[in-house]
């Protein structure tokens, strides 16, 4: 009898989707991504020191929370005496640049393929599916490494390579959501009203699958940033002396057993940025009711 609570309170209480935690997570993701964008845009004006200026006598100075902090280099210096915070800030620029350019390139390819395949169906769709399957069978890291190995490393080549490789999820999601939207009444109505195909795709289909694609974009951006770091770490990504976070970790690797913070600082930065982008994507998925799985 006591199991039933007081029979009062007739008012409806609308529950937030996923509760407060979800909003905190999404907000945190937004703050992290927003901060990264700001830092990347304002890098030249906010760096305390020149990120490329070497100062060999001041090598591997410890950061502010450790003994021996010199009061000048907040995050210490690297093995060539360059200010670590300044390099970290420029690194954010590279990560964001790679992330955004990859999403733009791969989004263009993937969304075009997916929407066309999903809308046209038949042979066209078969061809799109075959392209997706083929792409999935290609080991991304290996091919990206090989391309950079073949043509020499540069930031723009890396961005282009990743863009050309990471379109699969865009295509899969665009295809399946387009197939659903195609069956909706207003799309049929637009078709009956004599609208052109291009018009239907751009004005009727695309806006309706945009929320799903936004979630995919966050996932791909996070993936591209991680891949750039991994490739740079392997020495076949961003060429030195550019301060990619992955490259910073690679260059500091030899000192990590004695001064672990040299790999901790760029690693944590990388983790936090990718975590923030994923949090934002997760939140978007819930808020927009989108899904990013095929």
């Amino acid at each position, binding site marked *: *009898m*006591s*199991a*039933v*609570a007081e*029979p*009062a*309170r*007739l008012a*409806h*209480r609308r529950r937030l989707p996923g509760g407060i935690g979800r909003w905190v997570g999404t907000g945190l993701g937004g703050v992290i991504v927003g901060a990264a964008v700001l830092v990347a845009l304002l890098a030249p004006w906010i760096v305390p020191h020149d990120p490329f200026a070497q100062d060999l006598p001041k090598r591997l100075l410890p950061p502010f929370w450790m003994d021996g902090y010199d009061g000048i280099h907040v995050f210490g210096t690297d093995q060539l005496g360059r200010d670590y915070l300044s390099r970290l800030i420029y690194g954010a620029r590279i990560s964001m640049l790679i992330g955004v350019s990859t999403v733009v390139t791969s989004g263009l390819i993937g969304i075009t393929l997916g929407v066309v395949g999903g809308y046209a169906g038949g042979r066209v769709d078969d061809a799109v599916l075959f392209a997706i399957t083929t792409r999935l069978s290609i080991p991304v890291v290996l091919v990206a490494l090989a391309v950079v190995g073949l043509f020499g490393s540069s930031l723009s080549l890396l961005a282009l390579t990743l863009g050309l490789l990471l379109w699969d999820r865009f295509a899969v999601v665009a295809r399946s959501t387009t197939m659903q939207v195609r069956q909706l009444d207003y799309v049929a109505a637009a078709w009956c009203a004599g609208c052109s195909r291009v018009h239907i795709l751009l004005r009727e289909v695309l806006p309706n699958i945009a929320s799903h694609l936004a979630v995919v974009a966050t996932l791909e951006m996070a993936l591209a940033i991680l891949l750039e770091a991994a490739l740079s770490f392997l020495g076949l990504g961003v060429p030195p002396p550019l301060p990619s976070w992955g490259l910073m970790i690679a260059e500091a690797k030899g000192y990590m057993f004695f001064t672990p913070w040299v790999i901790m600082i760029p690693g944590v930065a990388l983790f936090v940025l990718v975590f923030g982008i994923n949090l934002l994507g997760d939140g978007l998925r819930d808020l927009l009711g989108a899904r990013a799985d095929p």
Partner: protein
Amino acid sequence: MTEALLEVDRLRVEFGDEVAAVRGASLTVARGEVHCLVGESGCGKSVLALAVMNLLARRGRRAAERLRFAGRDLLALPDRAMARLRGDRLAMIFQEPTTSLNPAYTVGSQMIEVLRRHRGAPRAVARDRAVELLGRVGITAPGMRLGQFPHQLSGGLRQRVMIAMALMCEPDLLIADEPTTALDVTVQAQILRLLAGLQRDLGLGILLITHDLGLVARVAHRVSVMYAGEIVESAPTAALFAAPRHPYTRGLLACVPVPGKVRRDQPLGAIPGVVPRLMPGFQGCAFRARCGHAAPECASAVPRRPAGATHDYLCRLPADWVRLEPAA
């Protein structure tokens, strides 16, 4: 037939603090009796059954003055002991035989596990029992069916399998939640005849949940009519059909065409509106918004009135109001 097998007294079920699905419903199923629980969709019939079985969804909360099965207090029973009772003394079958069987296992393995769980029976013994029961529910070539998967059977066969599975431990009570709703009309009749036969032969008590009054008339010993989470009228089948007291019961009966009694040009009755979704704390008669006899006092507590030794109903109107009212 007088020994009470299942006693439900003022059962309440709430989901969160937003929906009161069952609001003080009481009913008694006697041993070996077919008791029909009738009502529109959404009136709380299935929730009542699930509450008895302690199978409510996680948000569901049940409470009652009394909830006893074969003399045992179900409210005080720990979850483990209740699980031991389910499938053994107390079995249940559902509306959708298609989705109610696990697609990953054969019919045989799903039947056998019941006897192994409750009796610890050896596999071979359980298998023999399964073959016997499949034969009992009218399935030909039971040995072959045991090795088949649910998707290889028709809807009617699946429901027979569900019934056979429910009978594995010879339960005292079978709760059948709209067991024929999802089936073809011809198959419906077969399943009903089967249930009625099982009740006769095995002395099985059955709580049959349905919205089909034609079905009630054929098999039930006793009928309880449920509306918006309450039992609004309860009576032996003959009494209910002969002299329904509650306006809702009368409305329900008016919806059923009776051959020979209904004239061709006379329109069938219909109850305007739908079952309201009630919040906890709702007062008065839940039917008053749809009732032709509603009066201001219907907004306050309504009495439960007797209309005979085993007939009662929940309404402000006196037992003889039917005679006072000129026939429509």
